[in-house]
């Protein structure tokens, strides 16, 4: 692990501007200008990380939340490198076992991403990171703030197309890298493939599936508008080979059921809703 990647390679809160313990938090994150793009899933990650800081501070850094349930995520608009995100979370409940929260990210007055009905189990913090290092980092974020521009991007994971039944289902194989800078930040003592990177890959697969639908009007492209029932069933270790699946949902024209399996066992499920917008 390179310690320079800690609080840098996968950290998306620059400063916590307001925090009422167990109630709410506000923060900011400046998307580095020199990135090629900044996907909406990482915006959601930023909101989740602010919730995590609020939760950890509330329990005295005994526990840290991990991604488990996100029952409602709404994607309002894209952000661009150079944008500054205003982050907010409302903590519904928080104790040593779970944190439940809702949150949002805005660019100015415009909503970018909204999260609702999110729940994360609180696990012993020392399994993932040094409690003292987290407390020190928290003090920095609550004070002058961290140096912006630390995130350098994430290399696109290796995704190989698999079975395709047009209009019904599409699969792909995602090889989680065995090593990557973000593992030093997520997390230093236990490397876990971030749920939001998995969701980003799943959304891409879902949009590819939607784009190949025979009834898609010419000149339109599918864009994600809502993700529901996100459920992370287990940690994904470096080097894991995942089978991603996108499947048409019955009785809903623009909904796709997303899945991810490792060794035949479900590790994540979600539902994606998309809209067709005029595009290239």
């Amino acid at each position: 692990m390179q310690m320079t990647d800690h609080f840098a390679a996968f950290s998306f809160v620059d400063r916590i501007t307001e925090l009422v313990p167990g109630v709410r938090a506000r923060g900011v994150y400046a998307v580095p200008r020199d990135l090629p793009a900044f996907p909406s899933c990482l915006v959601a990650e930023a909101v989740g990380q602010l919730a995590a800081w609020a939760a950890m501070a509330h329990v005295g850094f005994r526990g840290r939340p991990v991604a488990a349930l996100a029952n409602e995520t709404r994607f309002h608009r894209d952000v661009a490198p150079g944008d500054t995100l205003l982050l907010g979370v409302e903590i519904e409940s928080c104790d040593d076992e779970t944190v439940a929260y809702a949150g949002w990210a805005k660019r100015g007055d415009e909503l970018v991403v909204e999260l609702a009905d999110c729940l994360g189990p609180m696990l012993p913090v020392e399994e993932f990171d040094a409690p003292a290092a987290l407390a020190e980092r928290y003090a920095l974020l609550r004070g002058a703030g961290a140096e912006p521009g630390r995130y350098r991007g994430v290399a696109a994971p290796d995704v190989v197309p698999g079975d395709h039944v047009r209009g019904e289902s599409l699969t792909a194989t995602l090889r989680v890298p065995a090593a990557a800078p973000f593992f030093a930040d997520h997390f230093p003592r236990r490397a876990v493939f971030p749920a939001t990177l998995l969701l980003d890959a799943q959304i891409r697969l879902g949009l590819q599936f939607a784009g190949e639908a025979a009834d898609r009007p010419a000149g339109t492209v599918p864009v994600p508008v809502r993700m529901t029932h996100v459920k992370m069933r287990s940690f994904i270790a470096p080097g894991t080979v995942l089978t991603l699946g996108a499947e048409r949902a019955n009785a809903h024209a623009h909904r796709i059921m997303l899945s991810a399996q490792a060794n035949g066992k479900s590790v994540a499920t979600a539902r994606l809703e998309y809209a067709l917008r005029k595009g290239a």
Partner: protein
Amino acid sequence: MAQNEITKEEIMAVFPTVAETMADALGCDVDDIKLDVSLIEGLDAESIDFLDMVFRLERAFKIKIPRGKIVENARGTLSEAEFEQKGIVTETGLAQLRAYLSEVPAERFGTPMKVKDIPRLFTPETFCKLVISAQREAA
């Protein structure tokens, strides 16, 4: 209030919402949610699904269900030591568990019964009782 005082009428009153909530959490048809089906063995529920179901039930019924509440309710007035020893439910604890989970057929209780296997016994009716208990406590 003692668990056995929950009536069938009370259970049937909350069951439709419980079934709908569970079906949404498990991604199955609401018709698959029978009152007595094993959630783990019959509907492939995993631990995160239990977390999800409790989370959704809290919202659906506007109640608070502390984690581990089912086992706590099942234990009733017994102390932890009276209920289990080294992860195995005691005979006294087993009698209490059978009474609490009266909807579960006797043959589904293990002998010995491991505490970690208790969730294998849970059915939608178990969660109906959980909701009713929480509603009573909030009243």
